[in-house]
């Protein structure tokens, strides 16, 4: 399984781009006007500007530095400094597989094997940064290799782990449909304290 949760649907409205990362790979995650979600390398091929600082117009992502516009497959469609030029096909942003299921946005840096993890009847609650590695959190729950942990508890919690650095990750939490969000949130805060305090 190489799908990694990189955000929640509720945090990415139409026409918005946000920065994200999977380990050392920095990503620009954006949603087009028609609702499609994409995960791209967070670097404009022109002069290296972060695309997560850019803006969405219709179904294209534009870089904030010189306004180069990239269409949904990542290829450059328009260079404002040269309005009459058709940009060569060679100018394109590296793109990654991206999927959105049950309110979770997933990306895969390598060709994904199969579908993203089934969240079954749960729904997303919130994303929470934690000052531990994803590996350490998985080990804490005795599931060392996993990035999708089905914890159970009163709320039937599942945690989708987004590895960021050796000391930091983002936990995307899901819980049973009927669960009280505030109660789940308190449970998560307590978990974060436990995790961060158990750091070596």
């Amino acid at each position: 399984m190489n799908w990694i949760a990189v955000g929640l649907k509720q945090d990415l409205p139409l026409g918005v781009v946000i920065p994200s990362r999977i380990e050392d790979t920095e990503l620009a995650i954006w949603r087009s006007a028609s609702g499609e979600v994409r995960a791209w390398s967070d670097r404009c091929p022109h002069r290296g500007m972060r695309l997560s600082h850019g803006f969405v117009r219709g179904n294209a992502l534009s870089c904030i530095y010189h306004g180069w516009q990239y269409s949904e497959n990542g290829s450059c469609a328009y260079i404002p400094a040269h309005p009459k030029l058709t940009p060569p096909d060679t100018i394109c942003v590296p793109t990654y597989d991206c999927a959105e299921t049950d309110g979770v946005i997933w990306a895969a840096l390598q060709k994904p094997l199969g579908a993203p993890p089934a969240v079954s009847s749960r729904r997303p609650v919130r994303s929470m940064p934690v000052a531990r590695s994803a590996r350490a959190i998985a080990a804490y729950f005795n599931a060392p290799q996993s990035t999708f942990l089905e914890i159970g508890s009163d709320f039937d919690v599942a945690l989708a782990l987004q590895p960021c650095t050796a000391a930091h990750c983002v936990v995307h939490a899901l819980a049973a449909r009927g669960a009280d969000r505030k109660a789940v949130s308190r449970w998560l805060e307590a978990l974060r304290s436990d995790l961060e305090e158990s750091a070596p």
Partner: protein
Amino acid sequence: MTAATDNHWYPVAMVSGIDAPRETWLLGKKITLGRDNGACWVRDAAGNPLTVTERFGHLWTSPGQPNRALFTIPEADTPGRRLVDVGSVRVKCSPLRAVENFLDIAHFPFVHTDILGAEPHTEVDRYDVRIAEDVDEVWATKVKFFQPQAAKSASGGITTEYMYRVPAPTCAVLYKTCPPRPGEWDIITLFVQPLTEEWCEVWPWMALYDDASTMAEMVSFQQLIFMQDRSILENQIPRKLPLDPGMEVPTQADMTSVAYRRWLKKIGYTYGAQLVAA
């Protein structure tokens, strides 16, 4: 560090801002600067005096033996100009990226929206670029761009003509159509102090024909522009300037940047540059 880096002049302070001795960085090393009996001085970390000169409102020094005198800007001496010390902005980027951004006009509509540029006026016409071999400088001329408010003294949109000049690896001079005086050029410079390869202090300085604006207005106009540039410069990947082709994709609008990178390579100036594609 190499002679190619050491033997240049670098700005390290605004002369009017020097009072008590203070520490700063130059090319990754600590230096101290101050003023005794009216004369400014700079010392290296070991306390040895470095060569200094005062020009364009700033104090300049060199850790090596500069192979030539600090460049001149003769036009700045013509009477009637107001000389504006803008102050400084610290930026987490390569000093070379800061200079390259200053040479770029295609970003005006997107970064300095409704001030130095605005959509749909985004086209960059062909202009002339050359490396002037006699003086060993990069020059771009006949650069034209439509601007909604080209300067504090401009009211309404005009097509502004520019000339750009790179007289030293971390310095650039811009000559720009002057709204109140057709036929003359306003002068705006960017003097960059390389603190390290990925951190710099930018000292803009201006010599303008502008009788209408107050000094504070001219300073804050230019500071606004540089704050907008900083939001770009701190978010380019990599932080260093790639000198080898392949990592970035220049177009015709980037001819000044292409010439600047080529010239840096030619003179062997690699401080703040990335040489192999990462």
